[in-house]
């Protein structure tokens, strides 16, 4: 029941906002729908905590600790982003960058995007995962190109082609998976692609086929995660889309894509052993983290900067999943959570910062603390958090990842440390002049909704100091599941 609500609310929202999206109260409707989704998601969480994993809808939907935690996170960040986007998009309209019709598209697609992500998370069918991921791509392509400027069209085009091709490979991987499954599970129509069935029979899946399937799935969904060298769409799309979209792309879509990768990894490990998939994930992760860290140094655009930072963090998370084992998986899940929260809050502040300064170029953004202390301090705190300063949660997860890496694969620690160090310097030296210094930029026409920023950062802080036992147990269950 809760599950239908979770999926139904955003779907309903898509249609309602497709009609009402241009109205003055559309942002409020958007927030309302997101709130309803979050409430439904919390009910679902409560139910899962109480009753354990859930399998419904002819086994087509499956909820376990791993995905329910991502569902909750997705619904939550979806809500806060909706709250943030209310004044943000009004300011954009005020500045003449958007019309009411575009806003209708925006609101409707926002909800469709939420729906697609939630569907990808909740479905038990690997085929449906693919369909949902493709739908998520399509809806975000429209969102990225919302401004219809040259740059945004270019970004959207690249995003579409690269992710489209990537996802086509994932489809081939899915076909191979189906092929492998059919041999062991028999041709049972719908059930052969069900993850639960595959998981139960993973030891019997043909290793050669699974190896190939995993490569295709990894490259396919890995493109969406933003793993180097498949990441090229990511900075463009993050920089050119509207800020709320950057926030959800970075905070949610990457997670969802990684979720798909991990689900596939579990199957692959069961069939061909942990060596190959683990090594691949570690290699991709390290490469992404190191490359992105170096790219950070070259950035001039604030949202592009944090786009690269997302690649870096996704790299770290992927690396941690590649390490495997309860501690690394726990850390990776924690890092997923805190990265979503922190990165989305950074995008919130970065969005308002560039609105205030009238440019996304960091050279033009100065003295934020002076103009608007909340934006300035939000940006500083967010950056410190994302850089892994204690006591924020990012530190906790990175610390765990580092210690595990040092114990199990000591040769990886230098790379990780280089990535972290270079990224630290890169971001720090860019953020500081933006926050301090002098500026005479005018005030914004609508007061920004920065409450989400501080709520997110507070949560990240709490997660860094102390993970509530219930949550930790939940993470641990998910980590065990991933193996």
């Amino acid at each position: 029941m809760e599950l239908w609500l979770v999926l139904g609310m955003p779907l309903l929202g898509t249609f309602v906002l497709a009609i009402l999206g241009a109205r003055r109260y559309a942002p409020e409707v958007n927030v309302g729908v997101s709130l309803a989704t979050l409430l439904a998601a919390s009910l679902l969480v409560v139910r899962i905590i109480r009753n354990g994993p859930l399998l419904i809808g002819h086994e087509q939907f499956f909820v376990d600790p791993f995905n329910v935690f991502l569902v909750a996170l997705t619904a939550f960040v979806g809500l806060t982003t909706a709250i943030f986007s209310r004044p943000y998009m009004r300011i954009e309209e005020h500045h003449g960058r958007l019309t009411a019709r575009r806003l209708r598209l925006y609101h409707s697609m926002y909800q469709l995007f939420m729906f697609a992500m939630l569907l990808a998370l909740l479905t038990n069918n690997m085929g449906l995962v693919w369909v949902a991921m493709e739908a998520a791509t399509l809806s975000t392509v429209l969102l990225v190109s919302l401004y219809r400027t040259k740059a945004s069209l270019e970004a959207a085009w690249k995003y579409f082609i690269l992710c489209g091709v990537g996802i086509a490979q994932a489809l081939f991987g899915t076909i191979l998976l189906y092929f492998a499954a059919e041999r062991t599970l028999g041709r049972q129509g719908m059930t052969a692609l069900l993850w639960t069935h595959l998981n139960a029979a993973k030891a019997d899946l043909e290793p050669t086929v699974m190896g190939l399937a995993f490569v295709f799935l990894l490259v396919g969904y890995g493109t969406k995660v933003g793993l180097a060298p498949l990441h090229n769409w990511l900075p463009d799309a993050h920089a050119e889309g509207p800020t709320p979209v950057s926030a959800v792309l970075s905070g949610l879509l990457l997670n969802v894509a990684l979720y798909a990768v991990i689900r596939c990894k579990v199957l692959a490990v069961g069939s061909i052993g942990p060596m190959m998939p683990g090594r691949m994930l570690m290699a991709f992760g390290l490469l992404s983290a190191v490359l992105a860290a170096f790219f950070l140094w070259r950035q001039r655009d604030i949202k592009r900067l944090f786009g690269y930072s997302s690649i870096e963090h996704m790299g770290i998370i992927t690396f941690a999943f590649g390490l495997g084992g309860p501690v690394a998986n726990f850390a990776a899940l924690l890092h997923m959570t805190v990265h979503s929260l922190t990165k989305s809050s950074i995008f919130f502040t970065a969005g308002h910062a560039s609105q205030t300064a009238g440019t996304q170029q960091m050279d033009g953004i100065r003295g934020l603390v002076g103009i608007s202390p909340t934006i300035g301090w939000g940006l500083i705190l967010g950056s410190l958090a994302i850089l892994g300063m204690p006591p924020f949660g990012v530190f906790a997860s990175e610390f765990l990842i580092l210690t595990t890496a040092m114990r199990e694969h000591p040769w990886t620690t230098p790379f990780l440390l280089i990535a972290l160090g270079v990224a630290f310097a890169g971001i720090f030296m860019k953020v500081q002049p933006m926050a301090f210094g002098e500026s005479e930029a005018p005030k914004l026409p609508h007061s920004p909704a920065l409450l989400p920023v501080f709520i997110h950062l507070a949560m990240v802080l709490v997660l860094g100091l102390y993970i509530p036992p219930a949550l930790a147990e939940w993470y641990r269950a998910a980590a065990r599941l991933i193996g």
Partner: protein
Amino acid sequence: MKRLLAYSSIENIGLIFTGIGLSILFAASNLHLFAALALAAALIHALNHSLFKSMLFLATGSVLHATRQRSLGKLGGLIRSMPWVAALALIGTLAIAGLPPLNGFVSEWLLLQSFLYTPQLPHAFINMLIPLGAAALALTVALAAYVMVKFYGVIFLGKPRETLLAQAHDANWLERIGLAWLAAGCIAIGVQPQLALDAAGKSTGMLVGQTIAPNPSVWRIAPIAPEQASYSGWIFLAVILCTIAVTFLLVRLLAHGRIRRTAPWDCGYPWQTSRMQDTAEGFGQPIRHMFGAFFRMERELPAPTDLTPKYRVHIEDRFWRALYQPIAAAVKRLADAISFLQGGRLAIYLLFSFLTLLGLLVFVL
């Protein structure tokens, strides 16, 4: 003024990372208890740093607001015109200088404690190097104390270096409250570090699977074992305050309390002006002298016959030039070298994707 505080932030971040690094070392050698200790020290220091650093930033903000003067060389004597800010900033200064019974000391003490256990690491070579690290740490902390004395002394003590400063007004209530709660935090963690330790213990429990040994009593902390080391902020504060009170009473009772206000003595030199005090640069002179090797200094000293004597010193950090700049340049070069990866051409991006796929396929074959 703020620059000084910013450098001090770097120092403190360094301390925090020292703790984290130690903790990782311990954790990698399965010495979980010590890893927890070092990590707790780092975490508490991070908390403390945020407390006293924001407090000092606020205090300098108040000073800036009241005097419109950013340069350390033009302040002075504000303790008389801004007693509230001065009193509260004193707490922050003492805390950041790492003095008991305030919070900065607690975390530094814990950090030093964790250094003490490094000989248990199974690497003989590291064992011999790490004590030097501890010494460097002690040097850093003491140097920080030096600098903070300079900071406080030059701003709040002495005579005003500009006549306008005498009219500086004290902070208003709001500012005072803002400063006061931070000061209260500094004192609270200083005398009751258990609070912070318990909180940090939860995080360390999460991160290295070990909390610090339970405290023997609420009055003091003993991270490893009470026989080995313990510290009690309460006793520090209480005994010092009691002694002060008792001494004060005794002095009042036994001696007379007569006071005569006179001009400063200064060894009988009556023509002193506020310009004869040490400036911030002057106060730092011994350090420049001693660490001269680390800096590149250009000095213009006045000759005895100069009618318009001029003193100018320009300092450049040699490490900055010799160590960081090449690293930064190398990173930049590397970043430039890999920038072709994001060359803007979609076909190239597709090619990357294609080659990755083929490479991985070859790998699994």
